[in-house]
């Protein structure tokens, strides 16, 4: 595959060319597709193997590593679902509650802050804006111990509150920035017209900005979902009772009891925990890629 890293053809609109050149181009293009297809397979293969293995009888998983097999069973899913202290459905429900709470929090708080930063003129704006941008880059370790202490003193350990409440206070600055970028792209004449018609800031926010920034809200919701669903560190320190575990932490249980070497169950529940991410990827791909692109350039 490494032979495929040759420079891409950067030429502008291809002019009609004499035959031999065109044939050479066709060959280059074929080679390129062959290389990319091979790389795609290599990238995806571990995931496909995970899915196929989760349907194999336990003793077959490592004996036969291929993904072509007819010996399939759903036994792993039945066993895995009930393998831990609680049915896996409970962990999925916990993950869902935390994710939905985080999404609502981020949508509300980040859009409010973004409106102020993008549309309003006020004293202290440059400093606050700079602080907001810098918090995107702040390593979480540096606030970890005091945050933990706060939640412990509040008696919030083993509840979902430490994972949800901060989102209602716009602590995910990345999304504030994403929304600021988006609101700036809305033609300002729209806001001017609303102002002349007598709309105050609240109305301008609720009735004009929010409907127009639905793509940015969608991107925020999708990213929040993916990051919260996969989050491991937060639940690991705040949730110690199995009943409160989200799927990510519950999966760890399979590593601890691996003396039984029940790989089938572990694979099956891994697949189950990845399915929501995969669905969101399929549905929200457009927003994901756009969201990344708009905040990532220059």
């Amino acid at each position, binding site marked *: 595959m490494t032979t495929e890293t040759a420079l891409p053809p950067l030429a502008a609109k291809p002019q009609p060319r004499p035959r031999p050149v065109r044939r050479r181009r066709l060959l280059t293009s074929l080679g390129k597709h062959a290389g990319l297809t091979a790389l795609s397979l290599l990238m995806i293969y571990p995931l496909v193997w995970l899915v196929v293995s989760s349907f194999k009888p336990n003793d077959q998983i490592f004996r036969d590593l291929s993904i072509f097999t007819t010996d399939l069973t759903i036994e792993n899913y039945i066993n895995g679902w009930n393998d831990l202290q609680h049915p896996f459905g409970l962990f999925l429900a916990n993950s869902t509650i935390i994710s939905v709470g985080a999404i609502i929090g981020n949508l509300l708080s980040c859009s409010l802050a973004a409106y102020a930063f993008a549309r309003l003129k006020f004293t202290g704006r440059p400093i606050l804006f700079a602080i907001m941008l810098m918090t995107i880059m702040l390593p979480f370790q540096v*606030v970890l111990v005091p945050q933990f*202490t706060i939640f412990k003193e509040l008696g919030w350990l083993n509840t979902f509150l430490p994972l949800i409440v901060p989102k209602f206070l716009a602590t995910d600055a990345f999304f504030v920035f994403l929304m600021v970028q988006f609101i700036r792209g809305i033609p300002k004449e729209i806001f001017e017209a609303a102002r002349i018609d007598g709309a105050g800031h609240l109305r301008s926010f609720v009735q004009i900005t929010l409907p127009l920034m639905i793509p940015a809200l969608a991107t925020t919701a999708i990213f929040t979902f993916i990051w919260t669903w996969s989050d*491991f560190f937060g639940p690991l320190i705040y949730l110690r009772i199995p009943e409160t575990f989200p799927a990510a932490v519950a999966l760890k249980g399979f590593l601890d009891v691996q003396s039984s070497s029940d790989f089938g169950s572990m694979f099956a529940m891994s697949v189950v925990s990845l399915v929501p991410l995969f669905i969101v990827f399929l549905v929200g791909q457009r927003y994901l890629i756009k969201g990344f692109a708009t905040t990532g350039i220059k």
Partner: protein
Amino acid sequence: MSSLGELRSLAVGRRRGGPRIQERKPDTKAAYLFLAPWILGIATFTIGPMLASLYLSFTDYNLLRSPLKDPPPFIGFQNYIDMFNDPSFWNSFRVTVQYVLVSVPLQLAVALGLALLLDRGMRGLSFYRSIFYLPSLLGGSVAVAILWRQVFGKEGLVNGFLGWFGIDAPGWIGHPDYALWTIIILHVWTFGSPMVIFLAGLRQIPEMFYEAAAVDGAGRVRRFVSITLPLLTPIIFFNLVLQIIFAFQTFTQAYVVSGGTGGPADSTMFYTLFLYRTGFLQYDMGYASAMAWFLLIVIAAFTALNFWLSKFWVFYDD
């Protein structure tokens, strides 16, 4: 404009794409109402805790004690002295720096290479882009880290493949020389998100630059070196800075791949994993706070170095 670009223009004092609100009376009162949740959040969950952890790093704060009823004793620089004399600390630092310095450039190089390959109206672009992007969405999950343990295990997928060629390889996860590399490969596997950013950046380069260059007789290599690469440098820089910052904080993959131990032989004892074990398993929160502040300083130094170096290779057209 990226967050870094914004910061830069704030620092340079130049407004680019800022709010285009002129000659209107300030909306300070409304603005602070809109900002209220954010200000409350930044005060209670960011700035307050930052200062608190700085203070706690000079104390003998133990997790089992309530800091309000029973204030931890002030011990000066003792945590920092202990830390700098602790071989385990330096090991975790070395492991993490090694990971950052290898995995970040490697991942960005792969991302850039593929973005260039996929650029310019290639057929099937969106298909390849989706396939390459998918791992970067799943890569942070525990499930994928669990999968990685099996892929690189003694009986795993990789060794099964090598077995076809008669190679009898060790269990990569269980070998102190290779375990870190499996996590590096996991990071490289998630090259899709920087690739998407590069692709978007490539699309912003005006076609007429290439047309003009072609008229002037510039060849393919020349156009790449003189147009594509310089115009991409701000995006490469942005990715480099942020990826380094995030890579320093890697936790989940190291935790799961090593089963929470940082093993074998501490070869995957990442900085954050060591910090977690010190603070939350040994309850030594003062030490953990000192580690956190040291990490902040290291990350700030890396970022400052990056900004300084950017003068020599990043091209800004303003």
